[in-house]
């Protein structure tokens, strides 16, 4: 035994044994994939600024410009205040779906293969990606919260906390949606084109820009099957609950199913369940990917 130890006098390389797969190992994979997304987000300051630009345009330019047309209908609540939750969801949505593009990006630049050949559970990689994108998108939403005061939304800790949680739920669901789409797409151009096809309809049909009350039937139906609707509404309820002036009847939030008002918790549950479902589909699709 002793002879074995002193056998190599020149140099003994540090010997590594790769352990068998375990839950702890899976968690390390989730963590490091998540960390990588965070490192890349922090490095890319330009992306953070650009991702803020579009929501800010909607909030301050569209919101201010249209204000003069709708003073009668807002019932004491500024249009920008009304738009704020919608614009938060927009910031989260854009960032979350853009983050999912990193899967396609990794494939194009080869890094995906490094992950695919490792002795790890593919679900751990997908979960890391989803949590990474969700964190990045939530941070982006938090940056938008800075502008709350400028549009008459109070900086109440309870309100801000509620909004952050709701944004995080939305961010996870949307990143999972993006990853689910991204795992089988090979070029970043196709992904971006597909993204555009998803993003704009989802945004316009979510109630982010207008109240969901008194719409024609076809539009009511489309807004009710849009997952984003169930994330915008809770955020708007939270914001309106913290305003001094009560909003007019036409602006009052609330999604209804055949006349039944859906409670906030159920709305959020819808978003969570959709997120989990899309994560599971993404994992299955990723397992078949090469």
């Amino acid at each position, binding site marked *: 035994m002793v002879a074995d130890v002193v056998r190599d006098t020149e*140099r003994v*390389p*540090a*010997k*590594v*044994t*790769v*352990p*068998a*797969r*375990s839950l*702890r*190992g899976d968690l*390390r*994979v989730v*963590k*490091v994939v998540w960390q*990588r997304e965070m*490192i*890349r987000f922090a*490095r890319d300051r330009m992306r953070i600024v650009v991702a803020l630009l579009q929501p800010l345009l909607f909030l301050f330019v569209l919101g201010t410009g249209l204000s003069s047309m709708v003073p009668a209908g807002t019932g004491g609540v500024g249009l920008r205040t009304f738009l704020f939750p919608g614009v938060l969801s927009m910031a989260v949505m854009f960032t979350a779906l853009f983050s999912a593009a990193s899967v396609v990006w*990794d494939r194009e*630049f*080869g*890094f995906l*293969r*490094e*992950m*695919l*050949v*490792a*002795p*790890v559970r593919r679900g751990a990689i997908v979960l890391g990606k989803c949590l990474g994108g969700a964190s990045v998108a939530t941070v982006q939403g938090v940056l938008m919260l800075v502008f709350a005061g400028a549009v008459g939304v109070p900086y109440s800790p309870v309100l801000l906390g509620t909004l952050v949680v709701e944004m995080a739920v939305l961010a996870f669901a949307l990143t999972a949606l993006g990853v689910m789409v991204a795992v089988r797409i090979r070029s970043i151009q196709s992904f971006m084109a597909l993204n555009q096809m998803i993003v704009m309809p989802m945004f316009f049909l979510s109630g982010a820009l207008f109240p969901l009350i008194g719409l024609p039937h076809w539009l009511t139906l489309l807004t009710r099957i849009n997952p984003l609707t169930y994330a915008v509404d809770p955020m708007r309820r939270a914001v309106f609950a913290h305003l001094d002036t009560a909003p007019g009847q036409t602006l009052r939030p609330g999604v209804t199913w055949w006349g039944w008002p859906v409670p906030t918790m159920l709305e959020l549950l819808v978003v969570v369940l959709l997120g989990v479902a899309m994560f599971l589909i993404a994992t299955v699709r990723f397992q078949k990917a*090469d």
Partner: protein
Amino acid sequence: MPDAAVISVAGLYKRYGEIEAVRGVDFEVTAGEVFGFLGPNGAGKSTTIKMLCTLVHPSAGTARVAGHDVVRARDEVRRNIGLVFQDPTLDEYLSAEQNLRFHAELYGMPKAVLPARSREVLEMVGLWDRRAGLVSTYSGGMKRRLEIARGLLHSPRVLFLDEPTVGLDPQTRTTIWSYIEQLRRLEDITIFLTTHYMDEAEHCDRIAIIDDGRLVVLDTPEALKAAVGKDRVQIQTDDDPAAIARLRERFGLEAAVHDGAVTFSVAGGERFVPELFAELGVPIRAVNVARPTLDDVFLAHTGRTIRDAEASATDRMRGTLMAMRGRR
């Protein structure tokens, strides 16, 4: 050890639709060997390496790597192998160190060994000083070296190098080979590599030549070259016609003038040269003995040069594509 084979392959076969990429190959790789898979592009090298790395399912046949079946025990195989692909698989937005750390976490390496092991592999490929630099600032050669370092990080029993030097300049290629040489000295590792550069195959302990999905021959470079036989000798003399005549009379060798030198083939050229000086009788100004190259070996076994083989592989692929299009 009773069984020293680290890789054993039996009847390995892969078909993609109509195309038979690998048509049943058998071979064994011994522990500690540098084993080269040599063949033209499209011969089935990459498909074979992908089957051994568990990335592609064989259509038939079996392969065991580090004692585990590549189909039934995929994760066990993966834990025991390191991979360096033709195409880059680094994250350019991370530093070299961060790339290594990512790899260590993926492979569940014990945290305590990581700093020492990272340093070791980075020093081996000469990147320790550049460890904090973003990979996007690296040259092509540095990236390939980092990939090799990363492939080694988890102390794999087998390192697979798929065309490790493709696309690199000659100087960098030489450097990569010196790392591979160093590696086999320092680490307890088996190296399986593919190449279509004849000169690079010479670095291997044993070479398998693959052509058109079949294993043509498998042996040491020396034995392969010896089987081809004769060396080519070129001499510059003061009187070429006299030298040619004397070679025929005294040694029974047919010589001719090529490229301004008297050229002939003889077995064991190096040992023949002293004899030549002693007995030719014509003053010799310069001698050049060329050993047979692996190019000659490939030619002898397949009846064509590697260049011809690559051209015909491309044609075949084009033909198949045309046929598929025509059918539609």
